[in-house]
């Protein structure tokens, strides 16, 4: 391994400090609302700082490095165009997200029950949890594989006389950390530790990128990217198989909009903020400045491309897709010096803990609140409720570990996770129409949710079948993803117009105005 004693000391010290902090915060948690949404007392800067760490997971760092290696900075135009739509929509007008906060719902399915029906709450709770859990299944193993290559660990380690895959050992450690931190105080711990982790992550990625650029030279970095990937590395809509293209952009835009009303981790963050206006402000600042962070991480992947070239070294027996994902850690393992390696490892470990914790807590909350509690005759009470969420977290971690052992990639990491997020987007359509369209009915919402569930799952299943048969799958993930949204919207509108009867619509706009006028939430 290429990690020195000083690196392990840096990693150990930062991790121990965070653990002590989490134990202390645990003593401050008194209620279910504290555990699940920090008592709704999180203000703008803290919410954004914690959000930054929650958004940059180890899996997203691995995925962005892979994209930077494959496609350079082609993502830039996609980011700019998406911001032109989403900043005014959410950041200025607070479209939908302020209304969600004003509903005081802790989760999307809770709002669905208020607006539509308890049965639809249970269905959306199940579909969203299923998609979220399936998506999360690859987080630990992808993160572990990245770390294994980074620390240059052997493929197999001998433990108690048995040869065990090293990435499985690392995966177990990562999941163990996630369990510890989610057990120590829930969302309130998460917000505070995420904030601290954000500082370490930002220092690590900026320091690494700066070091790599200084090593490669800026002119060499840019000219080699131009030579290696051509126009597609700078223009998302170039005519090249490496370019993203318009369908990919439209898919991403539709997803960026719909997930704001449906993606559990986002909504749990919005629910924890002190008032609706803080939600839209937090979105605006995070989006404007978050893009710079994305480019820094893409830039680390580009550095790997510049230093190593597009093809794997002759002594490495790896295929194209596998090389794309392992090239960056392979390069970093050989270039990053001691001390910086310690901070990089701490940053990556913290990135994993912060995101995995946030997502684990969100999906386990959804499973308990939306799939279990509706069937209970009596409320669980604070201790049992929190206990049920903690037990669910442990069960999920065991599931992730088992799936991680057998996971075999059929798509780049980003596209796999986005395709599963498509399932959740159907709930976003139901929530969006529910907030703004009085005619939206429960039947229409069922149609949208089921359409968004069935099409992406069918696509993913067929991909595995085609891969097993060694056939070429005819549909790009963006084609399935985008047209699923189009069809689900049409189904929502069509079925709502066809069905009659009263709806559960109420005007949340008035509540938004009232809550924004108060200095703090009540």
């Amino acid at each position, binding site marked *: 391994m290429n990690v020195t004693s000083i690196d392990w000391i840096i990693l150990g010290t930062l991790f121990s400090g965070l653990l002590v902090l989490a134990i202390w915060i645990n003593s401050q948690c008194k209620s279910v609302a504290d555990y699940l949404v920090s008592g709704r007392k999180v203000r703008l800067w803290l919410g954004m700082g914690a959000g930054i760490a929650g958004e940059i997971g180890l899996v997203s760092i691995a995925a962005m490095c892979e994209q930077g290696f494959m496609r350079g900075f082609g993502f830039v135009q996609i980011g700019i165009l998406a911001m032109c739509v989403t900043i005014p929509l959410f950041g200025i007008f607070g479209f939908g997200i302020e209304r969600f906060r004003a509903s005081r719902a802790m989760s999307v399915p809770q709002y669905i029950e208020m607006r539509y029906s308890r049965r639809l709450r249970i269905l959306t709770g199940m579909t969203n949890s299923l998609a979220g859990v399936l998506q999360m299944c690859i987080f630990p193993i992808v993160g572990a594989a990245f770390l294994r290559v980074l620390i240059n660990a052997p493929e197999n380690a001998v433990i108690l006389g048995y040869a065990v895959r090293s990435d499985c050992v690392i995966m177990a450690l990562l999941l163990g950390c996630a369990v510890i931190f989610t057990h120590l105080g829930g969302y309130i711990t998460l917000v505070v530790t995420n904030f601290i982790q954000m500082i370490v992550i930002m220092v690590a990625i900026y320091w690494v990128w700066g070091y790599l650029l200084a090593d490669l030279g800026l002119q060499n970095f840019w000219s080699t990217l131009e030579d290696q990937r051509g126009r597609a590395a700078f223009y998302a809509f170039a005519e090249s198989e490496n370019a993203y293209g318009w369908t990919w952009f439209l898919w991403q835009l539709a997803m960026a909009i719909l997930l704001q009303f449906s993606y559990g981790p986002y909504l749990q963050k919005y629910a924890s903020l002190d008032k609706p206006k803080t939600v839209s402000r937090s979105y605006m600042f995070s989006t404007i400045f978050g893009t710079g962070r994305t480019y*820094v991480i893409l830039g680390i992947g580009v550095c790997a491309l510049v230093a190593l070239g597009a093809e794997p070294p002759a002594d490495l027996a790896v295929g194209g897709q596998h090389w794309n994902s392992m090239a960056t850690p392979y390069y970093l393992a050989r270039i990053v010096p001691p001390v910086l390696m310690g901070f990089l490892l701490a940053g990556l470990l913290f990135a994993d803990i912060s995101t995995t914790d946030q997502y684990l807590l969100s999906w386990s909350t959804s499973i308990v609140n939306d799939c279990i509690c509706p069937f209970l005759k009596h409320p669980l009470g604070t201790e049992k409720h929190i206990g049920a969420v903690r037990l669910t977290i442990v069960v999920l971690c065991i599931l992730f570990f088992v799936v991680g052992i057998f996971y075999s990639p059929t798509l780049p990491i980003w596209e796999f996770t986005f395709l599963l997020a498509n399932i959740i987007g159907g709930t976003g359509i139901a929530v969006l129409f529910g907030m703004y369209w009085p005619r939206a009915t429960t039947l229409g919402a069922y149609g949208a949710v089921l359409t968004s569930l069935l099409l992406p799952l069918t696509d993913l299943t067929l991909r595995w079948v085609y891969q097993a048969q060694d056939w070429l799958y005819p549909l790009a993930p963006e084609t399935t993803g985008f047209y699923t949204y189009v069809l689900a919207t049409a189904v929502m509108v069509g079925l709502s117009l066809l069905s009659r009867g009263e709806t559960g619509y109420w005007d949340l706009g008035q509540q938004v105005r009232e809550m924004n006028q108060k200095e703090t939430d009540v």
Partner: protein
Amino acid sequence: MINFSPEIGFWSPFVFWFVLVSAVACGLFAIVVIIGGIGDLRYLFREIRKAEVDESDDGRVEGATEHLCPKA
């Protein structure tokens, strides 16, 4: 400062400067977030210590949130 490939045209210098400015702005903004976040942390702990426990605010639609969803 940097020589760009004429074959790629406008997008190469545009992306270079956009990435550079975004990365610097994001780094500076992170410092602002850290300073502001420390103040918000103190507020959070003070408020959580003061807050009373509401047993019914646990995600159920009945009780705590029922009054907030009148039918249209």
